[in-house]
């Protein structure tokens, strides 16, 4: 209990520095570096590369056409949907497994080594196996996404479940909470910050899993769109896809951060 937490309003945050200062000190240098890099890229491609190689001006020029192309939108939708499905499955199964590992010695002994092993294993080596089991199909893509994302969640939730303050469990026992309710009403919410850290990792890995499996399986989706267009010398179109993927990665991070602030206002590092 820190005295600074006393009566602090819910949305108390350190005063941000004035906008003009921030512009000068962080945004401006970043912008300048970015522009220089883009310029170098543009010049290098114009001087040294064949005309089909993507350069900033060609990507910007083609972007509106690509972003309104129904085929591109369908590909993007298919990839995002697969990522969302895979993440939901990973979230549910991963959380349950993580809780078990964190709270039961037997489950920990039985599962933890395997989880560590699979987490460390590059998803690219499991892909051929999955394609044998599930065929060159969307099922293999989902399996890869789950494989890529679930272990990050399991490990984080297990850490969180292990780190539940003993006092919370004691309070729950003192009020005669049943074991299952204790698991889902005390251990789970207490592990929430860990869970979200896991989801943040899992999101990036799921996206990679989707794209890599589309490369490998040649099934429709944003990854395949990128592969197909770069093979057919439509580098600029491919690059729009790449940028969109990067935007999804960043967007997901922002979304998780927003969820943390919105649904866990109580969670502060150092508070409590």
């Amino acid at each position, binding site marked *: *209990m820190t005295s600074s*937490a*006393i*009566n*602090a*309003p*819910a949305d108390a945050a350190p005063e941000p520095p004035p906008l003009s200062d921030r512009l000068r000190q962080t945004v401006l240098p970043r912008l300048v570096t970015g522009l220089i890099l883009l310029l170098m890229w543009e010049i290098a491609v114009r001087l040294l590369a064949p005309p089909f190689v993507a350069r900033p001006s060609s990507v910007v020029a083609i972007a509106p056409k690509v972003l309104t192309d129904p085929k591109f939108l369908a590909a993007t939708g298919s990839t995002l949907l697969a990522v969302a499905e895979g993440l939901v499955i990973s979230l549910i199964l991963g959380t349950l497994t993580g809780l078990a590992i964190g709270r039961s010695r037997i489950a920990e002994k039985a599962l933890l080594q395997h989880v560590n092993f699979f987490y460390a294993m590059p998803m690219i080596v499991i892909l051929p196996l999955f394609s044998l089991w599930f065929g060159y199909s969307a099922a293999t893509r989902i399996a890869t996404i789950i494989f890529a994302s679930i272990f990050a969640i399991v490990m984080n939730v297990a850490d969180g479940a292990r780190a539940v303050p003993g*006092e*919370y469990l*004691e*309070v*729950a*026992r*003192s*009020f*005669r*909470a049943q074991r299952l*309710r204790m698991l889902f009403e*005390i251990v789970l*919410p*207490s592990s*929430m910050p860990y869970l979200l850290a896991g989801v943040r990792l899992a999101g990036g890995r799921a996206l990679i899993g989707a794209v890599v499996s589309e490369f490998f399986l040649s099934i429709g989706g944003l990854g395949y769109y990128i592969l197909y267009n770069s093979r057919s010398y439509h580098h600029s179109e491919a690059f729009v896809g790449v940028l969109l993927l990067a935007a999804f990665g960043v967007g997901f991070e922002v979304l998780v951060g927003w969820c943390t602030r919105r649904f*866990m*206002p*109580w*969670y*502060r590092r150092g*508070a*409590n």
Partner: protein
Amino acid sequence: MSAPSAPAAQPAHADSARIRVRSLGKRYGALEVFRNIEFDVGAREIVAIVGPSGCGKTTLLRCIDGLLPHDTGDIWVGDARVEEPIAGVAMVFQHFGLFPWKTVFDNVAYGLRMAGAARTEIERKVPEFIKMVGLAGFEKAFPYQMSGGMQQRCGLARALAVEPSVLLMDEPFAAVDAQTREILQFELLRIWQERPTAMIFVTHSIEEAVLLGHRVIVLKGRPSSIHEIVEIDLPGPRTRATLQLPRFAELRERVWGTLMREAREAEFQLERA
């Protein structure tokens, strides 16, 4: 209500005892914490427990709450033998033990929810107890938004909300500042007057023990056992005026003397070691 003439060996409250502790012993592996602890707590009695740090006060309370198994002896609450947490006993924790992800309302409702109370009952009772501890208007606040004193008010409301017949308090005011502590002591006395229960109140403060307790149990030794039970024959209801009574000072000195003799012995033991 306590009979001042009753000799200490025959507690006046024995007939209406809510808690009965008999030849209780507890060890952690090789460390024997206490042995042969015996006392009763009446249904409308506050028993304060004082003793040097590490003498096993928290351990004793956790045994009585059924959170910890004991090794020898028996604990009875009413007709029930305590082996695990039983209904009708509620604990207030030193570090509040509030769930940071729950609002004041949900924290106070926790005990009722675990007891399977109906939604309507929860919606009726929780505000009542929030008001009783002076937290009205803070129903939606989270623990991190409140001072230590307010957090412990919430902890108290959570315990009171299950309408227990036994309240166990483990240094509930040790983690708040001195002024808040004084305020909370009198609030607790007021609430207890409204709804008397059997209460065991563990504290480091002799003043607090004498102010709140109808009897003060002094634990001593290693392993510790009950050194003395001091009857606190101060008139009730206790208020700020109680602190000014000559009898209050006398009793405080008496408990102080007992404890300090104990502390000196412990000090010499350390020096010899």
